[in-house]
């Protein structure tokens, strides 16, 4: 199998300063925050961003987010940021979103052009007969900024699909973290039925909304924009982050449960290098393996309707009890409980 050997890492400088970072900077400036204090410690200068020449690494963007959170000091910062994020002003990829003919096309565009549209948070789309499931993954090791990014990302999708479809879509959001003190922000920006302490950072919507035609879309303009955006991705040389590439590799080979050595070989690097790269992204190999197995297990339960034994067998566990133990370690809950949690959604 051939692997894409190019990807971006936490220190790759490729996010144009006038794309997503500018959205956050403008929000902060509109709240009378000093641009010098906002960019302190990030190695960035406002003049350079205004000139359109600056490229940020994910790490620098995290620094900017951290500064903004501290200076804005308000519970709604992430949600306001999210409302301004999509479709955005990120060249052809944004045009492609603007001219999406329906939600399905918009979601596909978001997934395919993730490096341009949402470089720090990777969206993934799964469909079953009733629902579209859209979940979000940490692509660069966001650490403390993860919750901010997650709130912003989900808000961006809810706000964009409302604006472009011309109606409020019945998105349901669930988060893996506990209910925060400022839960009313979730109610107002994401809906009153937002749930917490769930196994995944996930959104879902009934399937019929996927194909509903959106007004104001131009099929031709949309197609050309998608081609142009693909050209931009080709020019960048990568479409996803290193962590995402590893995720995809582990997902493809989940039944064989590859070792660190095997994975390193597939990525043409030494095990030490792979370890170091993961460390740079605030994660480890076992953590990644567990994450993929958890996601696959949940997928099999929810979408395929597998039983405990079938899932255990699929993931090559010899012993169902052993599987239950592992599952509890991944999710903090037993398979039966998780399934209940899902159906009560």
């Amino acid at each position: 199998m051939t692997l894409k050997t190019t990807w971006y890492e936490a220190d790759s400088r490729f996010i144009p300063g006038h794309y997503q970072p500018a959205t956050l900077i403008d929000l902060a400036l509109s709240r009378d925050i000093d641009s010098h204090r906002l960019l302190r410690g990030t190695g960035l200068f406002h003049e350079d961003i205004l000139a359109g020449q600056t490229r940020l690494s994910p790490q620098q963007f995290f620094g900017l987010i951290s500064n903004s959170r501290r200076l804005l000091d308000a519970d709604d910062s992430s949600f306001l940021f999210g409302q301004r994020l999509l479709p955005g002003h990120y060249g052809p990829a944004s045009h492609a979103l603007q001219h999406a003919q329906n939600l399905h096309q918009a979601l596909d565009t978001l997934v395919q052009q993730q490096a341009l549209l949402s470089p720090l948070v990777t969206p993934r789309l799964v469909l079953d007969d009733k629902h579209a499931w859209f979940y979000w993954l940490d692509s660069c090791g966001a650490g403390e900024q993860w919750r901010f990014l997650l709130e912003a990302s989900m808000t961006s999708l809810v706000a964009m699909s409302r604006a472009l479809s011309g109606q409020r879509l019945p998105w349901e959001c669930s988060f893996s973290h506990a209910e925060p003190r400022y839960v009313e922000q979730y109610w107002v920006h994401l809906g009153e039925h937002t749930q917490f302490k769930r196994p995944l950072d996930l959104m879902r919507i009934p399937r019929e909304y996927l194909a509903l035609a959106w007004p104001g879309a131009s099929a031709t303009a949309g197609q050309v924009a998608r081609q142009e955006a693909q050209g931009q991705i080709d020019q960048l040389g990568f479409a996803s982050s290193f962590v995402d590439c590893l995720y995809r590799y582990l997902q493809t080979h989940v039944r064989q449960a590859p070792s660190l050595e095997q994975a390193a070989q597939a990525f043409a690097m030494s095990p030490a290098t792979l370890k170091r790269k993961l460390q740079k992204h605030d994660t480890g190999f076992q953590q990644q393996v567990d994450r993929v197995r958890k996601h696959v297990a949940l997928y099999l339960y929810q979408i395929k309707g597998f039983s405990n034994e079938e899932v255990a067998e699929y993931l090559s566990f010899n012993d169902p009890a052993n599987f239950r133990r592992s599952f509890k370690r991944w999710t903090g809950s037993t398979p039966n409980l998780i399934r209940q949690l899902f159906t009560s959604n």
Partner: protein
Amino acid sequence: MFSVLKPHRWKLGLLLLAANAGLLLHLACGELKSVSEWVWLDIVGEGGSALLALVWLGLVLKSRPAGRVTNYLALGLSGIFFSWWIDSLDEFIRLPDSITWDHWLESGPMPVGMILLTIGIYHWHREQLAISAQMEKREKLFREHRLFDKLTPLGGADYLKRQLTASLEESRQQQQPLSLLALDIDNFTAINQTFGHAEGDAVLQALSHLLLLNLRRQDLLCRLAGDRFVVLLPNTGESQARLLALELQQAVQGLAHKTRQHGERVHLAASTAVVMAVDEAPEALLKRLNLALARAKQPLAKTA
């Protein structure tokens, strides 16, 4: 920072001059003590007090608009600083016993400063009462500036929860009903999209003033999140709360907000929901209120 201190440049200049003059006078008449004679405890105590008085002066001048009350406070603190300053000088400079004016310099400005400061604080108190009267319907008994909303001149969700806890307790004790009212602007995202987020912010600020005008004295208005406001209605049953909700809805519809850029009229409409508190926790009550609001907005789903 310096623009804030500008109206006070004469006062500060004079204080600097006086402090310098005191220093020169001491140097001219006395002799320097050697380091071995320094009493560190006194230096830290008296010098530190002088320094703190200067910090207080800076904070007062920086945080208050110029005016009569500020002048009293500044003069009082200046006098206190000057006294402590002279006091700490004699830790370093020994004056001959024949000189007595240093006692006057040291002890004279202190009582004068104290009196001026007291007058200042008294007037500050009067001023605060006046401001509190203006804060009616936005603040009740308890102030915590960290809970202020960053955009509108209202309390945020945390302030609301705090007040709600207290009000629930009070209504239980007095056997009086307590109602909550939520108001949410219909299609607010369209305003942000059409006129920009800055205009959306301006609409929220205008609305907060409008809603305040339409409330009773005892009501408390807070901004929950985004374009959602919540009013705490003490001693109010559900039917009366519904009436108030209707009035607020009509007020929002009647507001002819003009955009800042082109003076275009923005048409506004709001959805409201009302709940009366039963025996429940503040969080549960707020949740119930928001679910009621979601139900109220449902028929509007096409436009909201």
